[in-house]
């Protein structure tokens, strides 16, 4: 996927107003199938996935035993076969997640099938996405609940469709055989009011929606307790790798926390810029951009807890200039 097909701003706004198509085939797709798959995966994910119904999808983190985040993933339980799970993982972590699974498997009974090379993944996002794709599908996508998936046909092509995305808009993602990807892309791309969007818009869209990006808001040196992603951690009544470290971090309550910042002016903060309270450095920006929807600069940062309250007045050092910034509630944009 290119950074941009034309203008990031236009691709971004087209996603907010109409419908856009992203080639997200770089994401890793790992199938785990077998009698022990459910229990094994549940022992790695911060969120409970044991007992998930077929056709359900959950967002979760994977941690090491120190609570460092290895990846953030979607766990699919495809409809039908109850022994089968699909993990959609970040491209940059695919190999390390595969290794992590192999290292931890012990005598558990399951097979791992890396479906990344053999399949492609398209994201179709925007307020018009469902109505646009519906005439091509063999069922009414509006009846599929958010974070659910099902097998479907687009024309004559079998695929897995999920009501998911990384833009903060309604829409879906399609997993299709790699050799059919171009054909399906073209069919959708040719629809009226549909255009292509690239990695640049994907980043500004997810940032407005305050969705974390691995390598920025999530990393081996960040504990889930700092991220504000409480919904992705099921601590009660189960055990998983990293649980003790997460509980300890939550109890100590002293690590920096993730916040949203809105900046004055038009200059955007970027990753690595320092966040200041007066003269004191209290945090670091992990992602920042000029928000095409809000038409002002926004950023996410990890900062000291005592400054993390809403409306807290701070500043960001942008290449030697101190720019006023205010802590705000996340997300920056909600559809």
């Amino acid at each position, binding site marked *: 996927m290119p*950074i*941009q097909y*034309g*203008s*990031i*701003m236009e691709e*971004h706004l087209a996603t907010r107003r109409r419908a856009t198509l992203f080639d997200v085939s770089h994401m890793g797709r790992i199938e785990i199938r077998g009698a022990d798959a459910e229990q094994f995966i549940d022992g790695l994910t911060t969120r409970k996935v044991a007992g998930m119904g077929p056709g359900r999808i959950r967002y979760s983190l994977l941690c090491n035993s120190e609570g460092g985040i290895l990846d953030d993933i979607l766990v699919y339980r495809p409809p039908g076969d109850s022994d089968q799970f699909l993990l959609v993982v970040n491209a940059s972590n695919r190999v390390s997640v595969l290794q992590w699974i192999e290292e931890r498997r012990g005598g558990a009974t399951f097979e791992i099938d890396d479906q990344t090379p053999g399949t492609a993944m398209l994201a179709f996002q925007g307020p018009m996405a469902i109505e646009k794709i519906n005439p091509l599908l063999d069922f009414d996508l509006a009846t599929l609940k958010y974070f659910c998936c099902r097998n479907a046909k687009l024309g004559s092509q079998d695929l897995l469709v999920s009501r998911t995305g990384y833009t903060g808009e309604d829409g879906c993602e399609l997993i299709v055989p790699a050799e059919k990807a171009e054909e399906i892309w073209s069919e959708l791309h040719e629809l009226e009011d549909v255009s292509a969007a690239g990695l*640049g818009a994907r980043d*500004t869209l997810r940032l407005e929606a305050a969705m974390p990006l691995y390598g920025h808001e999530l990393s081996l040196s960040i504990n889930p307790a700092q991220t504000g992603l409480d919904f992705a951690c099921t601590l009660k009544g189960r055990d998983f790798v990293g649980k003790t470290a997460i509980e300890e971090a939550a109890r100590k309550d002293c690590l920096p926390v993730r916040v949203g910042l809105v900046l004055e*002016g*038009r*200059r*955007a903060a*970027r990753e690595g810029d320092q966040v200041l309270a007066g003269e004191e450095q209290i945090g670091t920006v992990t992602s920042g*951009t*000029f928000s*095409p929807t809000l038409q002002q600069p926004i950023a996410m940062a990890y900062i000291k807890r005592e400054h993390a309250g809403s409306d807290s007045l701070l500043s960001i050092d942008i*290449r030697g200039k101190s720019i006023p910034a205010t802590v705000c509630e996340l997300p920056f944009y909600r559809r």
Partner: protein
Amino acid sequence: MNPEQFLYAETHEWVAVNEVDGQKIATIGISAHAVEQLTDLVFMELPEIGAKLESEKEFGEVESVKAVSPLYSPIDGEVAEVNTELPASLEILNEDPYGAGWIMKARITDESCLEKLMDFSTYQKQCGADG
């Protein structure tokens, strides 16, 4: 303003040289190619009037949704005037990069700096090579 008669820096700034009262004045902007490559401009920082300019040194910056790009001075000189309309209306750069999209005017203090610059056709070739 005819961009074919301007001089160009490798870093995509253009220079139009005029003589006013025996003093060489450079009008400076960024090329249409640069504007096209940058896309989605949201912010520009102009230099202060009177600021000293040094050839190939940064004098300001322009920011797009994607990234920040420094602006490099194509000349040695001193800032005489800046286009104060520009930061609030960066779309002017797309519409008229060689006219209304000028960034600053500067008194040239050492004319030898102009020898390092390219003419239009040489610059076009560089842009072609850049893709």
